[in-house]
């Protein structure tokens, strides 16, 4: 990668892409016109140390969401107004037609960061959305110019605090997908299931306890409580106290629950105390001690049921696809993030 002033680098990138797209593909023996298939421009920004990871992400995405991928970072060692870049392109044969994709990697010098948005604007594929993902350690200097260009933002509250995400929500009106919200889907689903046939008890929740393995980069309970509270119209008065929509108090407890074989910052259980038709109702959804991929789901008191559930594992490619596509939860996530940030500030 050679470093060049931004304008010059942009011109060279355009020339390289043009020469790739205008030359035929020779894989099938005879030269064939390349076909572009575009669902979006995907812009991944992260710390320089995350570039390998970013490549893996964008490569995997080419199968399900082809388009143009950008990997952007910044590096203080470059001359301030320069960028270094790399352009890659590849084709695969689909029913005899070469379907091609391209990737653009750029590292911006400190001052050049503010031009990243305009570079992206010049290079994005027309007519399809621009998705911006904020990877680990995404350079702050890139965000003010990138976020306003985004049609969808992807964040990960497992490494970016909800407070910081809420701040970014102010910089962009784009809908947000959160990888961590996808990963923890099953917890929300299992909790929702407690109430499917006991809906009135949602108005009588008096205590919520969230267990998690200690040492996570961010607080995993925040998003969960933000979700639960925003669905039920709660306000948080303190980290350990909420008021439900009737003004009744709800006690919040966080429990450190170290588990061997489980990474830090993982939810280990959710316990809820409520009542139904005047009778107490105790709900628990807790990871098994021996097999942390299994949860025991139990209801005692006014309803008595118990099941075992496998939590299963999903790879990150799948998590990203869901964060991109599962837009039906966008509003719920935004509400959850806003309330989670409020809870964190208490």
């Amino acid at each position, binding site marked *: 990668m050679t470093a060049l002033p931004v304008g010059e680098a942009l011109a060279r990138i355009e020339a390289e892409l043009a020469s790739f797209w205008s030359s035929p593909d020779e894989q099938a023996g005879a030269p064939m016109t390349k076909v572009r298939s575009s669902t979006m421009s995907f812009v991944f920004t992260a710390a320089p140390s995350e570039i390998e990871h970013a490549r893996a992400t964008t490569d995997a995405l080419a*199968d*399900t969401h082809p388009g143009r991928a950008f990997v952007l970072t910044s590096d203080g060692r470059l001359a301030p107004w320069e960028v270094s870049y790399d352009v890659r392109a590849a084709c695969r044969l689909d029913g005899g*037609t070469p379907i091609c994709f391209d990737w653009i990697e750029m590292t911006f010098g400190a001052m050049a960061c503010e031009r990243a948005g305009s570079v992206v604007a010049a290079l994005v594929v027309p007519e399809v959305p621009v998705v911006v993902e904020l990877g680990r350690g995404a350079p702050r200097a890139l965000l003010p110019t990138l976020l306003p260009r985004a049609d969808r933002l992807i964040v990960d509250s497992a490494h970016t605090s909800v407070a910081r995400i809420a701040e970014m929500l102010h910089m962009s009106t784009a809908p947000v997908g959160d990888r961590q919200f996808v990963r923890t889907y099953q917890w929300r689903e299992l909790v929702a299931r407690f109430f499917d046939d006991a809906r009135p008890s949602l108005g009588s929740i008096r205590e919520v306890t969230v267990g998690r393995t200690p040492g996570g980069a961010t607080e995993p309970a925040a998003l969960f409580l933000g979700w639960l509270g925003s669905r039920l119209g709660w306000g948080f008065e303190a980290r350990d106290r909420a008021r439900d929509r009737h003004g009744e108090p709800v006690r919040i407890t966080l429990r450190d629950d170290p588990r061997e074989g489980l990474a830090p910052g993982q939810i280990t259980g959710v316990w809820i105390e409520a009542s139904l038709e005047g009778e107490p109702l105790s709900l628990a959804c807790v990871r098994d001690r021996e097999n942390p991929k299994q949860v025991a*789901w139990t209801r005692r008191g006014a309803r008595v049921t118990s099941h075992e559930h496998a939590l299963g594992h999903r790879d990150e490619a799948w998590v990203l696809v869901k964060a991109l596509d599962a837009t039906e939860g966008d509003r719920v996530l935004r509400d959850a993030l806003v309330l989670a940030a409020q809870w964190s500030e208490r």
Partner: protein
Amino acid sequence: MSFSENVGSGEENPLREGMPDERTVRPATVVIFGASGDLTRRKLLPAIYNLALSRLLPGGFAVVGVARRPKPEFGREMREAVAKYSRRKPLDEATWSELEKGMAYVQGDFNDPATYARLAAELGRLEVERGTGQNRVFYMAVGPTEVPMIVRGLCDAKLVVRPADGPDASYQRVVVEKPFGEDLASARALNKELLACVDERQIYRIDHYLGKETVQNLLVFRFGNTIFEPLWSRQHVSHVQITVAEELGVEGRGKFYDQTGITRDIVQNHALQLLTMVTMEPPSSWDADAVRDEKVKVLRALRPIRGREVLEKTVRAQYTAGTVRGDRVPGYREEPDVDPNSKTETYVAMSLRIDSFRWGGVPFYLRSGKRLAKRVAEVALHFKPLPHRLFRDAPQAMDGGPPPSVRRGEDEPNVLVLRIQPDEGIALRFATKVPGGGMTMRNVAMDFRYGTAFGSSTPEAYERLILDAMRGDATLFTRADEVEAQWGFIDPILAGWRDQDAPVATYEAGSWGPREADRLLVPGDKWRKP
């Protein structure tokens, strides 16, 4: 905030808001009748496994197979089948073993009441162990003659009861495979038998074409975009061609095939489904009855082909020996178990009319055949020619040389092709200017392929359909009146062939069908070679 309004009101669970509704399937048991058969092995279990892998199955879930043969190793056999036929490989052990825990097999004859008693006992056990309650989907992976017997057995054993209302009431549903009858009378009789003990709302008649992503996409293409629907009528469309072509022959099923023929096997169901999806009016909502009402209206507007009309408006044919994809293949009458004097059609072509404001006067050419040049299913809308060909007799070339030639075939009207399989996608043919002086035109195709935009591993039709049956969404299933309307259109054609002793044309295997099919076309139209 509106979402908090219904907290505790006993209505929707507000915690479910924003969750994909396909996931909110209530716990249930799927009971497969005919579980030792081919369909179960090749399609049903792989579909159920893929649903589990996509985490679309409910927490409480069980599968019970029922068939005549003893199957002491049902779980292991199904595991092998799934490993072989699943669209996603290799088999995910954790997912499979979770699924297998809720799997059971009941051996017995369908006409023996003891079979249902054993099934009831097994269900009783699983429903407690797996927490599935009495929610049951009975899947009939058997021929149509077995279905009434099974449904009667289920009703007598009270394993199926008429649905009670209320959000938490348990449900029992019956999924019936194609073919649904072999003519109008048998389809009616089958409907009558079914309705004697279950409600129409409990019956899910499968046409797996409707489970295909690309078939559903026909409706999204038409009703989810603004620019196509205005063109979708007699004002702009000159004719429509629907092709469902196979390369395969009868594949060892000569005996079955010789009694069936392609009209019953493909046209009555799949091809007519394509026709209705392409021609129906927009439904008022994506609701099972709203959609099916519109489909039935089209079937009712199909102009019947009766008596001598079959000779003019249809062509039936059989393949003779030929070459398909480089392999020599025998003719139909030489296939094992086929009557050497058979009149059963392996190809049919029809010229259809829909008597409606939208489609009056537009010919619909429909054809389906075995051993054709290529496996393809598509719908092609051919648009009307230009009212005035501005560029046809283009002026002298700029440099004063001879007028640019417009080669034949290069100023043809626009065509929009909706490809169902393979290479699912959409192609639009339109004219462009050839670069250089003058105004020479050339047709080019703008081609969109789903596989490249969404990855190639899209869900199989059976995944969608099994899940929909569990969710109680019947939109993609055929309703009783719909199936009867389909047969109501097909029956007179079959009768006409018989009564008029309609000739059986021949075509060489590997070709695009018999020459006789050309006479169905309005002069100037040509069959496509997709």
